[in-house]
């Protein structure tokens, strides 16, 4: 059993982000009050300023910065939108409400700072992330997609109206949606010893049915494909606060491999954020070599797949270890398999045989 020991982590975090947001307002206020056109400086997000940090094993933003000035006739509108977003999210956090990305787009209209389309408002949201070095979930802006979690974990909500209420994450066998409430809940107690993230809802249900949570003392997470950032943040917290190892199980193809990579090393799109990677995580399969080893039903790689392999080979995150090795295997065998392919040997084979073998194997690499 392990126990999360930073009890008020989530609420501290929220206070922290509010302070940062308010500081922006204060600085702008001061400038205006001194008859100076306020400016904001942030790290450039262009591809040129993406730097791979081999220690962190993730992309980070480089030193280059850009200044947005309210004096510039072309910049005053996005500048105002950014300040508005600070104002809007400050309200969100203080009132304990959440907003989707789409809501942000529409909400701006009431304040006469409307965006021309959602990609514009999404951009400004990312700008605010960069300035604050905080993920949008920290200021209560969520995307729609959600994934699920199941396992013996007692949590305590921090969201308004549920403060202090607890729940055990085995109490609903369909799994719990990872939404704003769960992302911000405190972890109270668990008997789990590992975290297993799987790429697909079908397998998640199978794991629950087959009691993987009991048999392997695991918390199971359904990433629903490439996991949304709230789920990656959740994985990060589980790993860090509960000090549990994270294992990732994906389809046996390069997209699956890349899902594992993003969970473990972060994505290029979120190079400005550090809290979304689980560097100690391990990808346990399905590897290209497993397709051979377990004689899995497979389909040939398409031309696009092969092109993608070559792209990934140029990515520094893939420059070694299991990542490089399995890329080569995929390229060599030119095949891919799905997790469900194990059903050929019976629905439970993946749990009875594959999972324990791979967990064992993972110890040694």
């Amino acid at each position, binding site marked *: 059993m392990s126990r999360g020991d930073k009890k008020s982590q989530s609420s501290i975090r929220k206070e922290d982000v509010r302070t940062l*947001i*308010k500081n*922006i*307002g*204060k600085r*702008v*206020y*001061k*400038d*205006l*009050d001194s*008859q*100076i*056109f*306020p400016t904001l400086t942030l790290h450039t997000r262009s591809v040129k300023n993406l730097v791979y940090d081999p220690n962190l094993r993730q992309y980070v933003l480089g030193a280059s910065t*850009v200044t947005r*000035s*309210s004096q*510039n*006739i*072309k*910049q*005053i*509108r996005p*500048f*105002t939108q950014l*300040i*508005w977003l*600070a*104002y809007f999210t*400050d309200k969100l956090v203080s009132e304990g409400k959440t907003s989707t990305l789409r809501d942000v787009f529409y909400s701006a209209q009431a*304040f*006469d*700072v409307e965006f021309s389309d959602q990609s514009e408002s999404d951009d400004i949201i990312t700008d605010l992330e960069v300035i604050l070095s905080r993920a949008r979930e920290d200021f209560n802006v969520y995307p729609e997609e959600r994934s699920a979690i199941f396992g013996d974990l007692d949590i305590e909500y921090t969201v308004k109206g549920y403060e202090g209420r607890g729940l055990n994450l085995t109490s609903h066998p369909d799994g719990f949606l990872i939404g704003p409430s769960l992302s911000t809940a405190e972890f109270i107690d668990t008997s789990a010893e590992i975290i297993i993230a799987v790429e697909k809802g079908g397998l998640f249900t199978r794991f629950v049915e087959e009691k993987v949570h009991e048999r392997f003392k695991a918390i199971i997470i359904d990433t629903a494909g490439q996991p949304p950032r709230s789920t990656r943040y959740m994985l990060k917290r589980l790993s860090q606060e509960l000090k549990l190892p994270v294992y990732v199980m994906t389809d046996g193809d390069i997209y699956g491999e890349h899902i594992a990579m993003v969970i473990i090393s972060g994505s290029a799109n979120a190079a400005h954020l550090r809290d979304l990677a689980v560097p100690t995580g391990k990808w346990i399969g399905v590897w290209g070599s497993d397709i051979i080893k377990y004689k899995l039903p497979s389909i040939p790689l398409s031309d696009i797949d092969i092109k993608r392999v070559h792209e990934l080979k140029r990515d520094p995150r893939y420059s070694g270890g299991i990542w490089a090795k399995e890329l080569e295997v995929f390229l060599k065998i030119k095949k891919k398999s799905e997790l469900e392919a194990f059903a050929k040997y019976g629905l439970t084979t993946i749990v009875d045989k594959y999972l324990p073998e791979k967990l064992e194997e993972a110890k040694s690499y």
Partner: protein
Amino acid sequence: MPDSKTSFSEISPSEFFYRNRDLAGFSNPARALYSAVRELVENSLDACEAYSIHPDIYVRITAPEGSPNRTDSNHYLLKVLDNGPGVDAKHISRAFGRVFFGSKYELKQARGMFGLGGTMAILYGQITTNKPVVIRSSTDGKTLEVIHMMIDIQTNSPIILRRESLPANGSTGTSVEVTLEGDYPRASIKIQEYFKQTALVNPYANITVVDPQGKLSFYEKATEQLPTPPRETLPHPHGTDVEALRRIIKQSKDPNMLKFLCKNFHRVGDKIARKFLDFAKIDPTMSPDQLSNEDIVTLTDALHNFEEFLQPDGSCLSPLGEEIMKTGIMKELDPEFVVVSVRPPAAYSGFPFIVEVGLVYGSKQLGPGLQLLRFANRIPLLYDEGNDVSWKVMNEEIDWKRYRIPQDAPLAIITHVCSTKIPYKTVGKEYLADRIEVEREIKNAIRDVLRKVYSYLSHKGSLEMVKRKTNIYSHFLPLIAKFSQDLSGAEALPRYKKLLESRGMKDSETNTPETNTPEKEQSEPDTKPLEDEEQKEEKKILRFSKEGQLTLEEFADE
């Protein structure tokens, strides 16, 4: 071996085109009617312009009278009447009744290229209806020569059935009446489009058209200005082949090579001629007669390879010019915005040409989506758009994204190529081969007009924005003030009004944001599309559909 199986025979040029009339655009009744109309109209326009007469053309298509015992529904009488200089009595019968006899064999710009069209129309009429053609012509306004004739196709010569001289009504001109099989219902759309576009590039001409239903269309001239008539020119060295060189040598009486070059070639003066002779290792004092066959080949190669000859000038060309082109466009399309780009003369294989491109934005006459109107030597080209060099340029060479033109913008590109020799791919004169030099000029001209419409649309957008919000600062600064007050928890708004006043003073900055933006290098997304466009490898994002509409292919991100 027996030799009876191979029988040799000769055919006349008329016979050749009689057998292969598809080649000249007379492939079926609809197309033939269209081709006959345009060939005769173009002859008339050429004749008028050569004499600097404002063309006044009358075209009538009717079912012929008489013939009571059969249905004539598919036989049409086509009459084309002009106010041109008329044709000399002695030339009339051959000019209209003999293939490869005509006035278009000089080295200057003309609509006709093959000296074939008018005769083909008459020949086609004859083989489908067996009716004589009636030609009336007056060169002095006093006597009118009237000739009824047919063509002896096998000998390629006219057969005059009747000939009379009548008093004329005071004006010069020519009329041709030919009876031919046609299909007006199927040809009508192209014929109407032909006249509409002809009026567009010939805005100095009056054209009256009466269709078989008796409907009259009148395209009135919109300017008194005529394009300068082209002059005949000497051949350019780069366009000279062995055969041409030999003929020039034969005809010339020049005592030496230096004189020979200066007198017989386009833009070759004493200085250049000397340089060239040095380059070709030819003695300037040598007589041209002394050149052997072998020498002529060497000389031809040298003429092609010497790079210091001047480019052909435009004196033998008669472009529309910006003003006339705009007039025609305004008249026929009545657009919100028009811009014309006229390129300097250029040359391919020694033939000079000029490209003129017009761009029209927001014409009610045009539907949404990009359209292409093509012209060559003031002829509209209506068939086989997809094979044309202009189409290729628009489809493959232009990076439309850079010009930020909305996908369904009501935009038309009008290309006009004029040359002493248009590089048609077929005798039917419907599309231009993609000669690299022509392609380049069209590309540059299209880019030029696109830059202009881009800046027009940007400016229009800016003005509208400024109109909507008299001062952009006075809109946004109060908002920034309000939000920052709330965030900072201050009790009053920051004192930002002075800043606003300072902006109010410099009102120019809000009125002309395109030019006065101080941090231009930061506003990349706006200026980048128009920079370095000539050098950069372009992405192709716009494709024409078969109907010539422009459609956007989105590039999905990874």
